């Protein structure tokens, strides 16, 4: 094997990539799917309610509101500017605290509290802001809450929001699309167009050739996996661990892609295999969406050994030392895939010659 030869082919493929629809599709598709899924399940365009406050005296309310993570507060100097910003939908609502407001509330009087509400703001946002303001004023007056709300979670599973349970699925989608499709399609195209013949008639060995395709796939799979995790806010403080998990996933995907590319006849067959065999790849990610399913079932699927650690890290903030056993199994599966790939690559070279 020659790293130099692989590097030359890798550079060629990287430069050629943007000129092909497949690469552009593989780059755009995961981001598009992330966007659509986040749109459906929330998290992407769920901004915090935006409240503007003009304090004409020295009320304590702005400081208290500013402490609330769920509300985005802007302090303004004049009522005119506040009105203008609510009108232009830069703010969902605007609160005007008159001079001496706090004193009047504490003394038991009922001062007027003016609030602008933007016509384009969401009804839910208006309710949240109104309830928050009433709650703050009650606190200012020293009144206890009329009721104590006790929350009770229904269901046996862990209380992990759906958008967090979706993260492994989205990362897998990015990693698998780049890792499986790209090397597979590149190998198939080079075989169909017979350009592989030309390359293999030079000092390039079939191993150099396959390694280059794998490297391109790995780079895209890893990059897209990182990007997807970033977009979904999945990175934890164990960044190196997060990256290691994605790297193992990218490696497994690339090896699967190379096996596919070395064996299937054409792109149509590749898509057919993807459709029928994709369930094996995605099964663990789907099973994570249903916490009531026994934990041993996802472990039957090879991609679990990248998705399991990813789930533990992104959802349960586990460190690398807590998931390393599953990751080692993932690396072991990759080694088996590599052992399968080696003779298949030789067979591919032979098939090219006799075609």
């Amino acid at each position, binding site marked *: 094997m020659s790293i130099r030869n692989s590097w030359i082919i890798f550079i060629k493929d990287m430069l050629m990539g943007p000129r092909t629809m497949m690469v552009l599709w593989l780059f755009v598709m995961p981001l598009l799917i992330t966007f659509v899924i986040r749109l459906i399940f929330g998290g992407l365009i769920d901004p915090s309610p935006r409240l503007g406050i003009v304090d004409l005296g020295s009320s304590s309310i702005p400081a208290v509101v500013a402490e609330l993570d769920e509300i985005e507060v802007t302090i303004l100097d004049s009522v005119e500017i506040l009105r203008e910003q609510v009108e232009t939908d830069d703010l969902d609502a605007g609160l005007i605290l008159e001079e001496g407001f706090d004193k009047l509330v504490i003394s038991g009087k009922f001062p007027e509290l003016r609030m602008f509400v933007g016509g384009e703001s969401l009804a839910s946002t208006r309710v949240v802001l109104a309830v928050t303001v009433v709650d703050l004023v009650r606190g200012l007056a020293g009144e206890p809450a009329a009721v104590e709300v006790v929350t009770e979670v229904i269901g046996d599973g862990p209380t992990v929001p759906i958008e967090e349970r979706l993260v492994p699925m989205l990362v897998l989608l990015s990693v698998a699309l780049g890792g499986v499709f790209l090397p597979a399609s590149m190998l198939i195209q080079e075989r169909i167009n017979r*350009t592989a013949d030309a390359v*293999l*008639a030079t000092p390039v060995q079939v191993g150099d050739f396959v390694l280059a395709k794998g490297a391109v796939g790995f780079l895209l799979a890893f990059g897209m996996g990182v990007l997807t995790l970033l977009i979904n806010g999945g990175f934890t403080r164990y960044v190196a661990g997060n990256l290691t998990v994605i790297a193992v996933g990218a490696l497994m995907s690339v090896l699967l892609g190379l096996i596919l590319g070395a064996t299937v006849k054409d792109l149509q067959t590749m898509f057919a295999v993807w459709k029928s065999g994709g369930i094996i790849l995605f099964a663990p990610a789907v099973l994570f969406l249903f916490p009531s399913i026994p934990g041993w079932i996802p472990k039957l699927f090879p991609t679990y050994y990248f998705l399991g650690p990813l789930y533990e890290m992104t959802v349960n903030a586990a460190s690398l030392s807590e998931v390393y056993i599953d990751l080692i199994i993932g690396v072991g599966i990759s080694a088996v895939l590599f052992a399968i790939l080696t003779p298949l690559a030789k067979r591919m070279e032979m098939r090219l010659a006799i075609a």
Partner: protein
Amino acid sequence: MDTKAIEVQNVRYFYGKTRAVDGISFEVSPGEVMGFLGPNGAGKSTTIKMLTGMLQPQEGSAWLLGMDVMKHRKEIQGRIGVCFEEKNLYLNMTAKENLQFFARLFGIRHYDTGTALRRVGLDDRHNDRVKRYSKGMRQRLMVARALVNTPDILFLDEPTDGLDPVSSRAIRSIIQEEAQRGAAVFLTTHDMNEADQLSDRVAFINEGKIVAIDTPENLKLQHGTRTVKVRARQNDKVIEKVVSLDTGDTGDQLKQAVVTPGLLTIHTEEATLEDIFVKLTGRGLV
């Protein structure tokens, strides 16, 4: 003793029970153009694949540049150029990028693509993607690619098949230049005239076996009929007379022919390579 560029001894290759190449032997010297002629399925491409290291001979031995092809495959591939029958170029790359890529694979860092493309008449289109090229332009680029590493042996598989006369002429001219440079050229073609013009020697292959191998002249002498056809106009009719060059009174007959009243033309009637191929194999070349 000079090292032969190609030495093949009793090489065989079977696809299952199908006999593709069945015990062929030949040699090609540096600077020699060897025309390898035969119909489709005769074993030409399989022979090229074995000589270029893509297929391993099941029997016999093939040596290129003094090295066993299968033992020194990559070393040999660094010193040969292959122009495939199929136009396997990177269509999304420009001509310049195609050549630069292959030059790098041969370890050439700064390849002069301008000169290479000028040689095949593509220098004005060097930045166009190959998918916009015509068939002839692609074929010329294929030849340019095969020359990137200044090969000691050049394998050309049907290099002018279906091309326009201008492209064919350009490629033939390059083949002659390469042979003059000292490269051994192994040429497969259907075009008998091309083989006749370019080849120092030709080999006829049929059903995996070489049925004849020699210079075109010798093959014609051995297997053709030496005659002269005389045409003359007499009494408003064109008459033809065939004079054999292998009879005792040939001289007298030719003298008579020259003074024939109303003489129109005198042509030698050499057998073509195709005639000889048909005679030897009982089948045509296509």
